[in-house]
């Protein structure tokens, strides 16, 4: 028998004389609760119910036959689901809903209802066939899961809100501290500059100028750090390039040729100040000593990154400095000790003519 001829099965199932029919016998005996309704009669009453249906609902056969299915509904039955069924009956199509139904004793159960029309040869709906299934356990388990999920979600939401508020407070505090650091650094620089202008003794003024340059170098490091999107890393390559241009540019020495071969090179932000100060010492020393007394020349900067370390090389073509004199200056001792702090190494080489200083330091991991 072909699938589209299925309805003949129920055609044979005449409710008045179905007793001898093997299909009717099967429907009567199955564990699946089933009813058949007759839409031709007023209010579409139940004309057949099997034993399983009686067992499920607690009603006897006599109490069931002749009534519309809605007698199983109660105050907590979802009206939207009822409307869905009503619509399916009206339009003559199948419907599949989970419905809260009431037994004779008033207890409830979740009914997985499947309702489908049975048509005759002319396509007229002759019966509705409805199978039920008690899915109380499944629905209740699902409800428990949903309730728990809701609880967990609410808890997560609450804690996330707490964390977000804490983070906002911290961020605000950090910005405030950062702002104060910026303002104080700016003021320290301004105070020193204003003081330098009042000093007549050139050697003291020069010392104060060196001090000012160091404060300025720290200010530039800080500025570059707070303007960067990544606060853990510091681009010492760009810093060196900007510093050499700034130092030579502001010295008013148009007679110093710059040869810059730089690239971005990232170091751990913790070492930014130390490396920034080292570069400042080397560059300002070169401008002051290699090109003293208006001597012109060239200054080169090379920034290179190897696998795990970076190299910054600064060379001048000045007269060079005797190593004995170099070791006495505060600049040299600053460089040596700050280098140790930053795990870096600074070496001087007599380039004949001039001096080359090479700083080798560890790079930070490139993060993806």
């Amino acid at each position, binding site marked *: 028998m072909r699938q589209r001829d299925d309805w003949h099965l129920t055609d044979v199932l005449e409710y008045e004389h179905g007793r001898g029919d093997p299909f009717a016998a099967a429907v009567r005996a199955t564990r699946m609760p089933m009813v058949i309704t007759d839409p031709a009669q007023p209010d579409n009453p139940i004309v057949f119910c099997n034993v399983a249906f009686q067992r499920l609902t607690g009603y006897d056969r006599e109490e069931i036959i002749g009534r519309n299915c809605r007698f199983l509904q109660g105050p907590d039955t979802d009206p939207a689901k009822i409307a869905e069924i009503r619509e399916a009956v009206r339009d003559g199509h199948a419907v599949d809903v989970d419905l809260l139904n009431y037994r004779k004793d008033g207890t409830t159960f979740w009914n997985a209802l499947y309702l489908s029309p049975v048509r005759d040869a002319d396509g007229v709906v002759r019966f509705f066939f409805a199978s039920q299934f008690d899915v109380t356990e499944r629905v209740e388990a699902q409800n428990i899961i949903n309730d728990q999920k809701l609880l967990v979600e609410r808890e997560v939401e609450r804690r996330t809100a707490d964390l977000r508020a804490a983070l906002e407070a911290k961020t605000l505090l950090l910005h405030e501290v950062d*702002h104060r650091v910026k303002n104080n650094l700016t003021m320290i620089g301004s105070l020193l500059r204003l003081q330098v202008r009042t000093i007549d003794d050139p050697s003291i003024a020069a010392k104060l100028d060196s001090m000012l*340059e160091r404060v300025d170098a720290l200010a*530039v490091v800080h*500025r570059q750090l707070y303007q960067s999107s990544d606060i853990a890393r510091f681009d010492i390559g760009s810093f060196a390039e900007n510093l050499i241009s*700034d130092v030579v540019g502001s010295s008013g020495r148009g007679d110093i040729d710059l040869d810059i071969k730089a690239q971005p090179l990232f170091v751990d932000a913790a070492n930014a100040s130390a490396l920034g100060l080292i570069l400042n010492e080397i560059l300002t020393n070169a401008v002051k000593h290699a090109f003293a007394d208006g001597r012109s020349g060239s200054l080169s900067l090379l920034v290179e990154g190897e696998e795990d370390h970076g190299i910054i090389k600064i060379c001048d073509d000045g007269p060079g400095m005797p190593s004995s004199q170099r070791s006495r200056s505060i600049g040299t001792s600053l460089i040596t000790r700050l280098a140790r702090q930053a795990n870096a190494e600074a070496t001087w080489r007599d380039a004949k003519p001039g001096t080359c200083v090479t700083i080798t330091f560890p790079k930070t991991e490139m993060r993806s």
Partner: protein
Amino acid sequence: MTRTMDVLVVEDEMLLAMDIEAMIEDSGHRVLAEAASLQDVQALPDDLNPQLAFVDLHLAHNSTGFEVCSYIRQHWPDTLIIFVTANVSKIPADFSGAHGVIAKPFSHAGVVNAIKYLADGAFDPPPSIPRPASLVASPHLKTRWG
């Protein structure tokens, strides 16, 4: 040789104002007036014609650098306006019509080089020297000087 610029300094922190003025004068330019607030700027005579204005964002009497910027643009449309601030992130993408920003904390070299660059461009645009990293140019400056 660049000529002398007349510069307006709008800064409510007196120490910084003194310092910036000293750097302007050391660079061979003239400080036309100083102001600590929008109200101070509004009180300035209209026939003032500064070539350059350094403007802090946070000013006295609850006024802001943005208000000063729009006042300057109305009264002295040719003035180059450079914000000097620690709050660079508060500046909108169009700089509210200003021409650039110098971030605090600034260095002596950074400010002096910026003044040199701006003076070069103000009298003989576009500037013949490269823009120092301490000065971030706005879209307006880029269109003005190509």
